[in-house]
């Protein structure tokens, strides 16, 4: 029979009808030979696919099971946070950043608040800096737990998600005990913390620190030497160090490839230069290495929190920078003194105006470099408010790593980049 290309997608029956046996079953005498272009198939994955971690849509061109081309389509969760930030006063912008990466909201608040502080030339007091580190490292563990649970769930280890979300609950309880909110915390404010730290909070955190390392050993026992896990992750999605820099990757995606760039070490902010911790680096740059890097980051976060708690517990100093035009006056002062009441009134009604200038401040987010670029024109709203979200940039590497991979690996590749679509689309 003919071997020419068939123009239709579903090939017509080309068997020899004449030789059809009388039993009624057809036998296809000749194999259908399709041309190169016809053996390809376009598959739409998402935006409502459970393993795309939200509303990511990926259009895949397949040859059999091998991916030839991949085109991520994003923007289904775009809310225009940057435009909203340019129409709100400085202190009102910080709650919007909760809604970008909602699994590590304190880190978003931290970057935004510190960008404003840098613009205004303000520094938070030492005790507040320690507490900021504690909350942001707790957020790092919470974010990595969500990543680990969903990543393992995508690959097939269902029970991991149950364990990880169980431990994440403890961290959310700590956030709730401090500020009342669990996800959209708005925990960092310009100048420090305006709410006092409750007395029981250090003990609650210490209890978590006692529980968590053993629980993390359970994850390690489940996954690290698991043959199925290794088969699904090792030598999958390899990113070379040069490619990682070319694709502007940051965070564990970059360090999994062996490039040593951690903002906490490279350009230390807060009190990170006083703390003793290490930055794990990968060697091969595959999915398994990025898993190991993130697991080690959780252990280092525990170390950091322990050191910070030891340092901060004896302190009894202010949590908020005071005598500054940029911070909210203390609640007690607004109730008792006229000056603070007037300052509070102005701060709430009119906001404050930092000097004309611009500032970029980046924090080491669980997902990478989370930068905030603020341009001030001297009014009380930012002239330009830019969020450099890490996973938006990291997701751009997906076409590169997916090319030549198998279809079943796409969920592993999406999982290893660690995306939250609220942060990708902003």
């Amino acid at each position, binding site marked *: 029979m003919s071997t020419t290309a068939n123009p239709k997608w579903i090939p017509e029956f080309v068997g020899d009808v004449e030789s059809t046996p009388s039993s009624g079953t057809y036998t296809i005498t000749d194999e259908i030979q399709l041309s190169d272009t016809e053996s390809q198939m376009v598959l739409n994955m998402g935006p409502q696919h459970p393993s795309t971690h939200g509303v990511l849509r990926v259009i895949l061109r397949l040859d059999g099971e091998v991916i030839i081309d991949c085109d991520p389509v994003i923007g289904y969760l775009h809310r225009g946070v940057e*435009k909203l930030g*340019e129409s709100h006063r400085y202190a009102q912008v910080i709650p919007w950043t909760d809604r970008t990466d909602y699994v590590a909201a304190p880190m978003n608040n931290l970057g935004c608040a510190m960008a404003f502080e840098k613009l205004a030339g303000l520094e938070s007091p030492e005790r507040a800096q320690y507490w900021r580190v504690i909350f942001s490292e707790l957020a790092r563990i919470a974010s990595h737990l969500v990543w680990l649970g969903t990543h393992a769930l995508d690959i097939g280890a269902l029970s991991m998600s149950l364990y990880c979300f169980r431990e994440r609950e403890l961290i959310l309880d700590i956030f709730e005990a401090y500020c009342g909110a669990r996800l959209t915390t708005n925990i960092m404010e310009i100048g420090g913390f305006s709410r006092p730290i409750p007395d029981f909070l250090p003990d609650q955190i210490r209890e978590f620190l006692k529980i968590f390392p053993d629980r993390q050993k359970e994850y390690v026992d489940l996954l690290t030497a698991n043959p199925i896990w290794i088969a699904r992750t090792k030598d999958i999605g390899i990113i070379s160090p040069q490619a990682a820099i070319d694709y502007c990757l940051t965070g564990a995606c970059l360090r999994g490839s062996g490039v040593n760039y951690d903002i906490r*070490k490279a350009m230390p902010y807060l009190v990170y230069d006083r703390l003793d911790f290490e930055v*794990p680096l990968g060697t091969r740059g595959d999915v398994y290495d990025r898993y190991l890097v993130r697991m080690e980051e959780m252990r280092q976060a525990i170390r950091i929190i322990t050191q910070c708690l030891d340092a901060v517990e004896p302190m009894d100093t202010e949590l908020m920078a005071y005598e500054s035009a940029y911070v909210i006056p203390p609640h007690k002062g607004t109730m008792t003194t006229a000056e603070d009441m007037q300052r509070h009134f102005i701060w709430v009604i009119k906001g404050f105006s930092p000097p004309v200038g611009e500032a970029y401040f980046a924090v080491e987010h669980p997902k990478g470099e989370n930068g905030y670029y603020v341009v001030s024109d001297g009014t009380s709203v930012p002239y330009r408010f830019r969020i450099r979200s890490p996973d938006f940039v990291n997701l751009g590497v997906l076409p590169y790593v997916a090319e030549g991979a198998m279809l079943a690996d796409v969920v592993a590749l999406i999982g290893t980049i660690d995306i939250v679509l609220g942060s990708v689309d902003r």
Partner: protein
Amino acid sequence: MSDGTSIQEFETGYSEPEDIWARTEYFHQDAERHPAVREVRAAFGPAVVTVVRYGDETTIHVEPETLRDVCNFLRTHEQLAFVALSDVTAVDMLKLRTTPRFDVVALLYSIKNRVRLRIKAGVNDGQSVPSLVPLWAGANWLEREVFDMFGIIFEGHPNLKRILLADDWDEGFPLRKDYPLRGWKEFPSYNTERMVPRTRTRWTGRGV
């Protein structure tokens, strides 16, 4: 590490860069003493419009045609080694000055020297700027976002189309300063009259 993994070496020592310039020069209040500024001025004399210093951040304003060349120069320079691109964005300067209207901002980072540098190129509406995708593949999505939000054309970009907004978005570019916060169109409220009317059903107790 408690798990038997291949990651055993931790490189934590960030060595101080051994440059011909002292590291303090990078943070000197006089922006002209910044090593990158001196090198760029020497290589691209008239293309450098101005140099601005705010806080500990240095910004070099360059002519838009030379943006890619300046970035490539800084990227391949041995001692400066601004190998990483942190961010590409833009600022609409409509309310602050008359011309040029936009500032295209490229934020470079030197992993070796641990400093950031901001390169700005002023472009007018309709004017194009050379794309950075040949230097950094990661600039692809960042430039698409700038095009999506500001309408700035990047020459040489392989796939310049909208990324966050819908492909058929016809309302212009939202992050421009003349774009209202709620958009140009008045979106109708959810029209309940056009919905399929709910059929009144009554449970009869007989199965159907």
